[in-house]
């Protein structure tokens, strides 16, 4: 079991600065997910932890020992690749046994561990097959099995589920979570899918353009995004952003935009007051919107419905507020039609404001 610590980690390729000053402390047995759009540096960071990429500057330490110059084979980690990287010329058994053989384990011990891992993953009957005879999900399990037989200090996952179809992905996600709870090994997991990140991670690291945007538990990221990027990245459908100007009137603070004038909730007004007269971005999660009632007068606005998306469990309303498109997620029991005018209310406790230029939450 191990802690992993990244200190001022940097990676420069010819001309691009892929990872910038990443600092991260991963606790023992923690499941940390690196998430971000493609090209954000998350995979590079992971590969540096694995030892597959040289570190340009900074340190990586595992259990307090700096491993910058340690070869992958000496780091005692395991990694599951996006395309599984099963050795095509070996049987499933040999695939799983390879790492143990490399570490000179005794034959009975190898056998015991492989059988055990195969049991855990339910791939016992596949042991004599070759990778090309397996389905996608089976390959995925073999790749996992190969990682777990070694009992490594750290698990690394590089988008392991992205090659599976949607249903299988959900199923494997659950299994992964269960597996981690059982093995209690420190794990770093890279994905571009925020749902995976939220469901799997004890903590989630959101990255963009090589820098860490925010680190926190899934709900923390959801409820208190550090900036507009994190806010928009976490949650589905994504948060609505409406540019607005803050104005003082009648002793309270108002956010004004074209076709919209709403009150800034008192608990936020305190902090926002010094931004009065400035442009800000207001963030409203679709799930905090609902059709307004008379009581909502200050926390509601008028909108025109563009498209109605009935999903069964809910309805997504694509509406327009002034010029801004807004999505609202509402009760499936309600009936709407396109081009209808509707008044939407929001939960004043869950409205976010971001600085228009720095994009940081305010």
């Amino acid at each position, binding site marked *: 079991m191990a802690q992993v610590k990244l200190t001022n980690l940097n990676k420069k390729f010819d001309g691009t600065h892929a990872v910038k000053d990443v600092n991260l402390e991963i606790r023992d047995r923690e499941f940390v997910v690196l998430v971000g759009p493609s090209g954000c540096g998350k995979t590079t960071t992971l590969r540096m932890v694995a030892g597959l990429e040289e570190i340009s500057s900074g340190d990586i330490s595992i259990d307090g020992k700096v491993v910058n110059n340690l070869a992958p*084979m000496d*780091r005692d980690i395991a990694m599951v690749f996006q395309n599984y990287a099963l050795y095509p010329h070996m049987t499933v058994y040999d695939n799983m046994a390879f790492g143990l053989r490399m*570490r000179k384990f005794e034959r009975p011990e190898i056998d015991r561990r492989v059988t055990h891992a195969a049991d855990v993953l339910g791939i016992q009957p596949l042991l004599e097959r070759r990778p090309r005879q397996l389905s996608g999900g089976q390959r995925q399990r073999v790749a996992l099995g190969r990682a777990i037989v070694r009992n490594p200090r750290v698990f690394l996952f590089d988008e392991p589920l992205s090659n599976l179809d949607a249903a299988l992905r959900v199923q494997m996600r659950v299994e992964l979570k269960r597996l981690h709870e059982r093995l209690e090994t420190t794990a770093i997991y890279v994905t571009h899918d925020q749902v995976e990140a939220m469901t799997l991670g004890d903590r989630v690291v959101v990255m963009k353009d090589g820098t860490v945007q925010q680190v926190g538990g899934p709900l923390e990221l959801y409820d208190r995004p550090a900036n507009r990027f994190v806010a928009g990245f976490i949650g589905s459908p994504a948060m609505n952003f409406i540019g607005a100007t803050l104005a003082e009137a009648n002793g309270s603070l108002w956010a004004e935009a074209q076709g919209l004038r709403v009150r800034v909730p008192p608990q936020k007004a305190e902090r926002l007051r010094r931004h009065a007269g400035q442009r800000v971005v207001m963030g409203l999660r679709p799930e905090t919107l609902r059709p307004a009632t008379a009581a909502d007068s200050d926390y509601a606005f008028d909108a025109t419905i563009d498209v109605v998306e009935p999903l069964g469990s809910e309805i997504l309303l694509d509406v327009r507020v002034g010029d801004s498109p807004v999505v609202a997620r509402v009760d499936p029991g309600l009936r709407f039609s396109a081009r209808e005018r509707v008044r939407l209310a929001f939960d004043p406790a869950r409205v976010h404001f971001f600085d228009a230029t720095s994009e940081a939450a305010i």
Partner: protein
Amino acid sequence: MATRGPISRALEREDTLAFWLLAPTLLILTLFIAYPFVRGVWLSLSNSTVGEPGHFIGLANFYKIFSDSIFRTAAYNTFVYTAITTVFKLALGLWLALLLNRHFRGKSWVRAFILLPFIIPTVLSTLAWKWMFDPTFSVFNWLFWKLHIINSRINWLGDPELAMGSIMMVNVWRGVPFYAISLLAGLQTINPDLHEAAAIDGANRFQRFWYVTWPLLLPVTMVVVLFSVIQTFADFQLVYVLTGGGPANATHLFATYAYQIGIGTGLLSEGAAISLAMFPALLLVVVFQLWYIRKVENR
């Protein structure tokens, strides 16, 4: 965790590992190519003849060969020979590959058998051709004569123009299987769905080839052509066996002329100069091809 010895550890460094992996190759190539190459260049700048080391005479050998009419013929022949045979080999090889890419009974047999011309030692199969081109006993002449196409013998290897043609014919015969098999390998990597899609889009057989197959096959084709051109440009055995460069030096290529002068006549320095003259020419051809391959691949 350190279970590995110091050697394994040292070899984890990419440049260290690369050095050791390349060492045997570099050793052999330095010893048996780089050094002889330098020696060869020196030879070409000397007046060395067999058994006599000679001394430096600058570019005199090159002046001599460039004013040598046989050398000019040989150079011209080499380019014509390479160009014409390559075109034919490519066209026929591609055609054969397309035929072989279809399903028919006995396909694997046919595929194995048509490789024969390519795998049989050149000298030996060329001897068979020499026998078939024999001025007196040529089976082709007999056949044409029987069919009343000709009434006097065709002088396959005796007529300078025809001799070059006959040599090219043998080269094409030998090269077509290589092209066919390699291009077939390339064809098999092309997804048949594309063809079906094109067919549904209304493309006829030729259009399907021209707009789907050919562009996808182009990278493979270029590699095959590259190797073939290198081989053909430096060809030696065919001419050596069939005509020895005759009649009247009409069929010399760079390699055979260099051989005749350097080895046959013992004028080592002049032979080296002729060989060396072929190197930049070949290099130019190859650089052009590599450039073109890059261009095609980056498209």
